[in-house]
């Protein structure tokens, strides 16, 4: 995402103009745009005018509309973001107060304005929003560490794209493969059919050009991770090799294939995949890898039962209150799902907690992407966890709920 214009005031209100360049930017936009914000973007609107005679003419007009955001709809599969709200600017074709849903498009600028009202009912550009903006704009420039992972087991394959901030399950292949039986070759047949289907799906998702002319293209191929328990991934790799002998275009894919072990063919085995040394060398220092590492550290602490790790909203807040999440190793791990809350107060609660840990307590704050495997794990723990500098006593929060 490119930052076109930045006019954020000191008090937190202000506007930012951004240009999304790749699908993942939509996900950033999804995290940045909150209900209540003002969003200005180009739109195509069907306008119907009634003539004096009563006949109607409808036409599609290009407009620049500014809406006050009411709701967001993000489709991770196709990376499309639809933002619904009420129009606030007057145009020749629309009235103020009409509803419109803006579809953000790649390479088309949009302007986002966050305000803090006179009595502070808005959140403005708080620290989290600024951080997200930084992530989105990618100041470090260490992007593009992307990989495609195929997590499979007999009869099931999940094809997913691992990006910097999110893991998108592109497609799931599920087939009923006959089990091995006495004297039957059904199983082998079924497996090769399954491999072929998975390969076809994978190539389609990769937009992979298998024609011979593509051999000369210098277009890079993203690493493809094949992960499975047992020998499924290995056999799949063999299958691709066999197919490649007949289809030379496919040979380009072969060098980028990495076979790794996973415990099962389901998506949550991805953590194991991404921890494997073979993958680590490819996706050296991705955010993902760091996040996964962090979660593992946290769970390790939890297992040791040192009481230096805690999770859950109430528990973490209590730990912060006790000053346990401070300098010298205190880490607050929080899922960005919490910041997407529709409730302004809720968001403020978490933002203030983050600010407090970071600025007052001096602890480390890690915002995990809920669209990554590590984030899903964290969500399972309530979306928030903390590593403490000293053991805190167990408290009974059973009154909760």
């Amino acid at each position, binding site marked *: 995402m490119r930052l076109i214009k930045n006019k954020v005031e000191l008090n937190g209100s202000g506007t930012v103009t951004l240009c999304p360049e790749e699908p993942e930017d939509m996900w950033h936009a999804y995290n940045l745009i909150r209900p209540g914000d003002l969003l200005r973007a180009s739109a195509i609107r069907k306008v119907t005018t009634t003539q004096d005679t009563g006949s109607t003419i409808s036409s599609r007009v290009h407009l620049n509309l500014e809406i006050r955001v009411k709701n967001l709809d993000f489709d991770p599969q196709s990376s499309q973001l639809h933002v619904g709200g009420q129009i606030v600017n007057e145009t020749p074709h629309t009235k103020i107060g009409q509803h419109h849903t803006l579809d953000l498009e790649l390479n088309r600028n949009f302007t986002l304005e966050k305000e803090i009202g006179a009595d502070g009912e808005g959140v403005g550009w708080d620290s989290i929003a600024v951080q997200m903006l930084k992530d989105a704009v990618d100041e470090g420039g260490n992007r593009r560490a992307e990989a495609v992972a195929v997590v499979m087991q007999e009869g099931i394959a999940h094809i997913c794209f691992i990006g910097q901030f999110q893991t998108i399950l592109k497609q799931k292949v*599920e087939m*009923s493969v006959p089990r091995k039986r006495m004297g039957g070759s059904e199983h082998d047949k079924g497996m090769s059919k399954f491999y072929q289907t998975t390969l076809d799906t994978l190539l389609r998702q990769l937009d992979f050009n298998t024609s011979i002319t593509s051999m000369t293209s210098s277009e890079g191929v993203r690493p493809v991770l094949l992960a499975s328990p047992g020998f499924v991934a290995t056999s799949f790799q063999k299958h691709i090799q066999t197919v490649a002998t007949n289809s030379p275009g496919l040979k380009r894919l072969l060098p980028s294939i990495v076979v790794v072990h996973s415990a*099962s063919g389901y998506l*949550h085995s991805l953590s194991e995949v991404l921890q494997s040394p073979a993958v680590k060398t490819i996706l050296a220092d991705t955010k993902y890898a760091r996040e996964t590492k962090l979660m593992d550290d946290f769970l390790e602490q939890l297992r040791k039962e040192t009481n230096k790790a805690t*999770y859950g909203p109430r528990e973490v807040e209590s730990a912060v209150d006790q000053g346990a999440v401070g300098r010298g190793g205190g880490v607050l791990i929080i899922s960005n799902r919490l910041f997407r809350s529709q409730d302004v107060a809720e968001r403020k609660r978490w933002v203030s907690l983050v600010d407090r840990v970071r600025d007052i307590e001096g602890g480390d704050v890690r915002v995990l992407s809920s669209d990554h495997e590590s984030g899903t794990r964290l969500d399972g723990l309530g979306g928030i966890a903390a590593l403490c500098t000293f053991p805190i006593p167990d408290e009974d929060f*059973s009154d909760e709920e």
Partner: protein
Amino acid sequence: MSRHRMKTVSYDDDFEDDDGYDSPDPEEQEFLEQCTKDVLGQLRSGEPSVTATRDEVQEALWHYYNDVEKSANYLRGKKAKEIQKKQTPATAKPKVLAYPIPSPTTSPQIAHFSASEFFRDSPWLNVPSHRKADILVEPLYPRMGLLGGAPESSGKVSKLAALAAARKKKEGEKPPVEATPAVATPSADKTPETPATEAKPSSLSLRERLAANDKPRKPSNGISTLRSLGKGSPAPSPLLKKPTPEPMKPEAPTEPGLEGPAENGQADHKEKEEPEVNIRAPPSGFASTIVGDSTRPTMTEPSHLHSNTADLIRIYGQDLTEPFDFAGPSPDDVVVNAQSSAKGFKSKQPAAKSAGGKKAQGDLAGGMGDLSVAEKVNVKSKNLDVLSEYKKSNRKKSANFVVIGHVDAGKSTLMGRLLADLKAVDQRTLEKYKREAEKIGKGSFALAWVLDQGTEERARGVTIDIATNKFETENTAFTIVDAPGHRDFVPNMIAGASQADFAVLVIDSSTGKFESGLKGQTKEHALLVRSMGVQKIIVAVNKMDSVQWDKERFDEIEQQVSSFLTTAGFQPKNIAFVPCSGIQGDNITRRSEDPNVSWYTGRTLVDELETSEPYSHALDKPLRMTIADVFRGSVQNPLSISGRIEAGSLQVGDELLTMPSGEKATIRSLEVDADVSDWAVAGQNVVLNLANIDPVHLRSGDVICHSSSSPIKNITSFTTKVLAFEHLMPSMVDIHRGRLHVPGRISKLVATLDKGSGAPVKKKPKIVAPGSVARIVVEVNQGVPLEAPTRVVLRAGGETVAAGLLE
């Protein structure tokens, strides 16, 4: 109601009317006396003046319910006719003929009267026995013999009867007016018959029988009360008339034209009224006697008896049409036929025919019903009572066992050896395997190839999926489930263990291997099978040849493994140890001949397997079966599923519901242990060939149940009490139940529980330590068919984290 009983009743009723006259009601008697006098007076004074006997009068009175006027009229008319008849040169025969047709009631009236005369005292003792004997027995027995072939009595059809039947059939098509004489003839027909059937069951003398007949007199009592009721009302109501067996006859003279149809109509009614026909019979028999008597009063008794017999024969000869018409399609026969379709009444052709016709109709209707059941493929259910079929079938006791253990412990080889030694695999196949195995440099895997059929398995020398095989010993049919030992294939092993009754744990005794195994899958597998409900475990200490059958090594392993197994929850009595060698075959089916093994005196592996007790299964619960495999059976059966029935029973033609897809299927045919069968019950390994379902809806791990009786539900969240093998915290897990393998997540740790009492120790723990028991909530993304109490295994990161029971 059986035919026999009806006959008995009718026989009773024969004498009942006699009884009725003598009913010991003094008031009634007095009243009757009064009426009799009145009638006699009227008869005498009336025009033409006639005389009647007291009994005649009383009879008439009875029939008219003590209506003096009517009785008198009737008697006068009757007597007048008799006088006329006497003048004609009438023989007994025309008399009899006349009696049914023109004035059917006349002769029965007399007959009745006189019969009652004879019979009146018979049940009431005081009557010289010779009298009964002479009158009843003599004429009756011959008749019985003569008419024994009558169609009514079961058995052969006499020629006469057959002829009669034929004629009757012909006559049956004649207009109904003709039917009127039937009244008399059936009676004649039945008179002898009643004793005939009576005679069959007991060899009592008639007298004894008569005496006995007195006892079951209840109906007659009822009748007498009815009569006394009727007495009160001067105009007898038809309602009251009907239940009494007699009223038909007095009615006849007043409305002669109606009699025939009425008679037929009544007979048509049902068996209840059937006795009437029979009741009429005896009097008619005697009637003829008495007719003769009255017409030729001078005749001696024997002579009139003879003539009487002749009369009867003649009656048969001429009127036979009617009696059969009546007896043949008699409604009670139809009813009896329908009710007890067991005994065929061959003698009764038309009846049998009608019954047959009915049956055919029933079949047709059933066929139509069946047609409407299935749309695409019509599989007719035999509607067997599967449980009783199962009880009837005398199958060998069967047992499934799973072979578990660390990878490369020699599970498949051990089982291959077992199958080879028990001749479950033929020698040629074995040699083929040996050649092929040697070719790829894996000679020692030849035996394992018996079970490791997959190309991948053979190439890598490791079992990947479970393999099932069968062998039989003298007492038991065993099904081997050979599970993979590799940690990646624990899901497959779980699928195998879920089908097992008991387990064989194979341990590699060679140096270093045992220790690594104990840390690895030896432990995990043992814990898994235990938590899946397996009680009994046989530990095969394999590869003992590699340690020279060292007793100390065996003891060490036994000690370590048994202590571990007991902590895992196996009872010491359910653990057995066998030192053996799979590759050489020692102590598997045969005792080892190696002198080093002399220290071992226990059972061989097969003997140990034999000690397994039969396992009971929930046969009467609703059907549950987890699909182990979906495959194409053959051209005839393009879609088959296999698995072990966990509960309930099924049969060919059943409509099944597959969950979670919720699609319906029909069982086209099924196989139990590779034998075609019509039904199967819990505990059996079956292959179901399905119809009317798309294979897309079937996946291994799906659950099969009956759509009609308590189908399993899909759930997205469940609470389970688990034993934690690893640290538990809210996290993603794989949920395993047999072949079912779905992703899910532990969403809540409800409480840690006390191991003994199950009482909550700590609510909402942050983490559950290994070895503790906890109640947790697990959520799944898509609905899965699970229900309490089901055992589930939770795994994460390639390790079993917990096993528990659904709540």
